[in-house]
């Protein structure tokens, strides 16, 4: 019997969280408009280094000292070439063959040398600069706390782990996305991401509350297992990070297009915003790091799901539509990681692959639950 008082608290808290996120978005926007601070500026590509490194490609002509640094490259095997070729941002010849990839465009990494990771090395302060950005970040954190409160009270109201239907699930993944936003903001000084991540979060939550709301209730017997805490939690964490990665990738594509237009001497409509954001290579690195975290989390969640499926249904993999689409999502993100290791596919093409993976993920969450019936139909929505 769900505790209706707590359930109402949960609903109110979620609406409050949406409002707080909305105000935070306003504050971020104001920060863009009014606070012209200097962000890390992309350094120009240094051609001298690039030529030297492309001479390393074949490994035959660069001289014995540099050839030794091809990390044991077999000159006969183009897949073993040193990742230094990756410095030329996607247009070196021959793939580098490693799944953990080369730095796409590290040549543009900036004079500060410490790059994006900047654990104190780049000289920027840890906390956001400017009153608007600070307000926005505080509002974001506040919204996050209230959002978490909404989820916890819902769980207490139902006396179970609060991810048993679509309403609760969307609330959870958006919370995870905002959580990763705040963590990434602090760790990578990526406060500027706030506006762009909160936008889809607020929209998703609004749709969730208005159209997908399901009152607090018990869970179906098939879901009544401790595995829900493992498998679904893993999914939520992975999806939160995938959302973050997708938003960053979109920004990267915009930044990359902006930079190309500027380099070609054309007008760019987003010049104002782009001046406030770091270079496309930084964004690309941030997106890549997001996937580096999300992909193992997704792998873990899929494995946990398989173990649970074996426990409940007698087989660990049955090509149920949800399982199939989880597999498709996994394969596409794996393709993304491979693309980062393949010359000619780094940069924009890899970004498109990541967005394709995200599209598969969204179909997995929404399309499979609503339009394809299978063992996984726990959306909780009235048929």
């Amino acid at each position, binding site marked *: 019997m769900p505790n209706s008082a707590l359930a109402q608290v949960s609903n109110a808290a979620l609406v409050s969280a949406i409002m707080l996120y909305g105000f935070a978005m306003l504050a971020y926007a104001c920060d863009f408009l009014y606070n012209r601070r200097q962000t890390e500026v992309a350094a120009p590509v240094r051609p001298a280094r690039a030529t030297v490194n492309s001479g390393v490609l074949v490994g035959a002509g660069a001289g014995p000292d540099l050839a030794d640094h091809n990390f044991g490259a077999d000159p006969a095997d183009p897949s073993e070439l040193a990742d230094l070729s990756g410095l030329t941002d996607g247009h070196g010849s021959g793939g580098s063959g490693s799944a953990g990839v080369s730095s796409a465009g590290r040549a543009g990494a900036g004079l500060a040398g410490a790059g994006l990771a900047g654990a104190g090395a780049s000289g920027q302060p840890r906390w956001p600069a400017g009153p608007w950005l600070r307000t926005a970040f505080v509002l974001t954190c506040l919204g996050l706390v209230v959002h978490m409160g909404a989820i916890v009270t819902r769980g207490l109201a139902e006396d179970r782990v609060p991810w048993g239907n679509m309403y609760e699930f969307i609330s959870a993944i958006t919370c995870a996305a905002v959580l990763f936003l705040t963590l990434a903001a602090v760790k990578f000084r990526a406060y500027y991401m706030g506006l762009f991540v909160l936008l889809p979060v607020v929209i998703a939550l609004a749709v969730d509350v208005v159209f997908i709301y399901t009152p607090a209730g018990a869970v179906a017997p098939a879901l009544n297992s401790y595995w829900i805490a493992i498998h679904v939690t893993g999914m939520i964490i992975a999806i939160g990070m995938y959302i973050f990665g997708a938003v960053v990738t979109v920004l990267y594509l915009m930044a990359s297009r902006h930079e190309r237009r500027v380099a070609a001497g054309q007008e760019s409509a987003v010049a104002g915003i782009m001046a406030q954001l770091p270079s496309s290579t930084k964004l690309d690195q941030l997106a890549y790091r997001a996937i580096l975290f999300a992909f193992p989390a997704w792998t873990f969640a899929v494995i946990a799901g398989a173990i649970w499926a074996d426990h409940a249904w*007698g087989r660990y993999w049955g090509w149920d539509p949800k399982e199939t689409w989880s597999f498709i999502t996994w394969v596409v993100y794996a393709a993304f990681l491979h693309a980062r290791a393949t010359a000619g596919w780094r940069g924009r093409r890899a970004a498109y692959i990541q967005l394709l993976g995200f599209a598969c993920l969204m179909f997995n969450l929404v399309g499979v639950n609503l339009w394809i019936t299978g063992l996984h139909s726990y959306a909780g929505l009235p048929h």
Partner: protein
Amino acid sequence: MTADVADVAQAAAASPEKPRFGPVAWLRWGWRQLTSMRTALVLLFLLALASIPGSVLPQEGIDPAAVTQYYTAHPALAPIVARLSGFDVFGSPWFAAIYLLLFTSLAGCVLPRAFRLAKSSRQPPPKAPRHFHRLPQATSFAAARPAEETLESAAGLLRRRRFRLRTGDGWISAEKGYLHEVGNLLFHIALLGLLGSVALGGLFGYKANKLLVAGNSFANTPTALDVFHPGRLVTATDLQPFSITMTNFSASYITTGTQRGEPSSFNAELRYTAQYGGPARKYDLQVNHPLNVDGVQVFLIGHGYAPVFKVTDGAGQVVFNQPVPFIPVDTTGLTSDGVIKVPDASPQELGFSGQFLPTAYETITGTVASAFPAAELPRVILVGYAGNLGLNSGQPQSIYSLDTAQMHQIDVAPKLLAPGQSMVLPHGLGKLTFTGYRQWASLAITYDPGQMPALISALAALGGLIMSFLVRRRRIFVRAGSDGGGTIVELAGLTRSDAAGGFEAEFAELAVEFERELSGPAGPDLARGDDPPAPTAPQAGSADEVALAQSKGE
């Protein structure tokens, strides 16, 4: 390089034949293409694309009823889809071709790399290059102590950070992070292991279904099972000889609130023996709580009602008295359809078809429906047939379908029967009595010897993945040379796989530490009579100096 080109030109001019690619060379080229990263990318996309129809079209192995529905809904399209294996995508030859190629590509790439890793990890790091400024990370600073001492301290620092060292005349070469490649290879090899585990299950495992009415028992033999899908190398003698009796089945449903009618729990009380004639054990089988007997897992996956009927034929004999499983067709009230066949009734064989309604009520339009899945008001409504059921011909029939081709419908208006009520058939054909109902449970029986290997492979893959993401392989080089009164220390770094950009931070940190430890003297050098200079304090800004040094090294 140009010398080589000239040689080629000469050689080509000298020999009249053009170099030809023999078949072996073509094979080698093909193999190289197959194991390239680009091919892997293409195959990954193809794999994802090929899985899509498997999720959209109904699949034979998952829901055969939906496949038959598809045939009736799309009569022209369905045979084409079937020809293209659209109803069995994941068992189809083209899907198999894609993942086979992908795994071939994977194996062909990973196995040589594994050998190369084994070889290279036994070798010491390479010599330090002459020109550090060509490397992506480079810096230099002045040190007070003589070159050899500085180099030794540097070696000590690097050893503390667990680098593998190789020293030479005035230089050190250090390498670390072999676990990256180990993790990478472990991940890919574990995927091969996963594939092997799936094959193991496919060869030696089996899956079966059994519908068991409460009070009945069954033994694990192919003839007792309703559905039996054996692996390729499984024969009847390989089945584990357990037998199960279901003494009771109970289901409870939510009675109030918005989720009224949803099931809240199922429980099948079992008594089972693992061997023929062995000791009996008890077990409560529930969803998410399977029975494990002799390596085989038994799952509770469905349930329904089996109303009990007694048929007395025209001659007054009781020719039928048993529960008949009815199959639910509606999830809200568990209205169930079923068929009763009485081939040994005289004067005519009898057949009945109808519905069981757990909580029966009549709608305004006159149809009957069930309001709640629990048997609060159980009723049965049947239509009777007499004639020839077709069973004596020897042709097998489904027990859930009634072939009325050689039968005529008995002219008795179907009405709801309560437990104990009878349907009297005219013309001395007999009488059917609805005596009560039992429940049945649908059990899934699976044996998969590849299950544990698959789990181990999957976990190994996850471990390898995390290892390869967390660790990066890098090399650090140090040179110390005398320059006038002091020593110039040059530091350079190189990383193989670091698109995430963390190496720069690590190198900067290392540079800061080196400067801190090495630029000051170890102690006053009394022989030289110098005063020990003040040690340079570590600053956050020193990274900027590193950066400046970097740009100077340009």
